[in-house]
């Protein structure tokens, strides 16, 4: 006897309006920054949900993040990783393709893999985070209900919180300058600060951006920022307000500029 499995009822794909309604209810720093950078790119990524192959730099960044997360968690539990254990974790994270695979050019993967490990190795050897200090949180997802401001729910993931300092890891190709970093990451840093405040009831002691720079001789550049000001908080809320207003008008216009050179939707944009 053959038994046929009952096929599940087909689920209706959400309409474009359903998706936009969902996007009005929650927002992350990266989603907000992208919307303010280029609405058409936002539409391709979050409304049409076009997917692209994972880039080598994203794969490297994710792998480095994974190892640093493991390293921070281990020292939190007072069972710190040795360099060899960190390397093993790096190798395992590199091989993990569950979030998409990369179309590597010949020889490229080994080179990138080596670069990534050298970044981690440099970071760990230079002791940028004291091993004996317990974290407050490691890669923790948090959200803040901002309905009383008439705004969507803010969501995000904090890489590391330690001694009330919010620390965010970034892998980058060139050495950053503090002023540019403070400016270019403001949406992210303000979002993280608000998330921290809403979830702990405390004010952050500061924000640190730990840039792991992919140079021939890897470097770690730490940019320390003070707690966000009232002005920065207000500015973020206004940006979120602009995001909400923008989503209510179905005008996903392109914003051509220098950033287009690295946009994964360049071809789609030219054809649109």
């Amino acid at each position: 006897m053959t038994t046929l499995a009952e096929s599940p009822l087909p689920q209706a794909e959400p309409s474009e309006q359903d998706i936009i309604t969902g996007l009005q209810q929650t927002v992350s720093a990266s989603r907000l920054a992208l919307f303010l950078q280029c609405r058409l790119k936002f539409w391709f990524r979050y409304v049409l949900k076009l997917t692209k192959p994972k880039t080598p730099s994203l794969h490297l960044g994710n792998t480095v993040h994974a190892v640093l997360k493991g390293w921070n968690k281990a020292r939190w539990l007072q069972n710190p990783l040795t360099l060899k254990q960190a390397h093993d974790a790096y190798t395992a994270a590199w091989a993990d393709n569950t979030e998409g695979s990369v179309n590597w050019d010949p020889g490229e993967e080994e080179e990138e893999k080596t670069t990534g490990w050298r970044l981690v190795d440099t970071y760990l050897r230079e002791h940028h985070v004291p091993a004996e200090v317990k974290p407050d949180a490691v890669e923790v997802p948090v959200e803040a209900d901002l309905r009383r401001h008439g705004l969507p729910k803010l969501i995000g993931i904090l890489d590391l919180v330690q001694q009330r300092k919010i620390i965010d890891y970034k892998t980058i190709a060139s050495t950053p300058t503090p002023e540019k970093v403070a400016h270019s990451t403001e949406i992210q840093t303000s979002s993280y600060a608000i998330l921290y405040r809403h979830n702990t009831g405390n004010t952050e002691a500061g924000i640190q951006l730990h840039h792991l720079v992919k140079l021939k001789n890897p470097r770690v550049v730490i940019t320390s920022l003070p707690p966000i000001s009232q002005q920065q908080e207000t500015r973020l809320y206004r940006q979120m307000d602009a995001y909400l207003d923008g989503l209510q008008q179905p005008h996903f216009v392109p914003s051509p500029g220098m950033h287009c050179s690295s946009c994964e939707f360049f071809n789609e944009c030219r054809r649109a």
Partner: protein
Amino acid sequence: MAIVLEANYAKKLGLPGYSSHQYSISIRTELTDLSQVEAESARLYALLQSAVDKDIQEVGFIPDNNTYGMNANGQNHHGNGFHGQVNGNDRHNGSTNGTHQAKGFGDRWNCTDGQKGFIQRIVNENKLDKGEVEHLANQLFGAGVKQLNKMQASQLIEDLLVKVGKPAPRQTRWQQRPTQQAA
């Protein structure tokens, strides 16, 4: 005649929840000459201020505005364990360091109702030992499950999901997986 110079530096700072803390350092030193007073005073001022500023950053215990000093279930602040039992003995909730955590929560949780429900569901569905979960909270945060703030509760949820083999993936945690391919 020896001249005794006595310097004191004190700082009082506000803390969340209508708290404040203060710290002061006093020091006495002997001078041989009055002409040394100005320079020595400046040196001591800088030294003491630096030391006070460094140490006062450790805020220590900050009482919870909503719960501190309040009775829970008519008991004298011994509600423990995140399952709401009151047994009057904190050591049974998995705390291993022998220190008494200030409590007073009864059935009140510091995190959101959603987080509370999620934690309870993970524990019940996976038959986790509540004492172990309490121990994990103490190990990570030095506090019981009910005392965790929203960020700590979120961290605990992440760790429990890992423990039961259902970790949330980093990149896709907040977003739906893309369903459409590029043309």
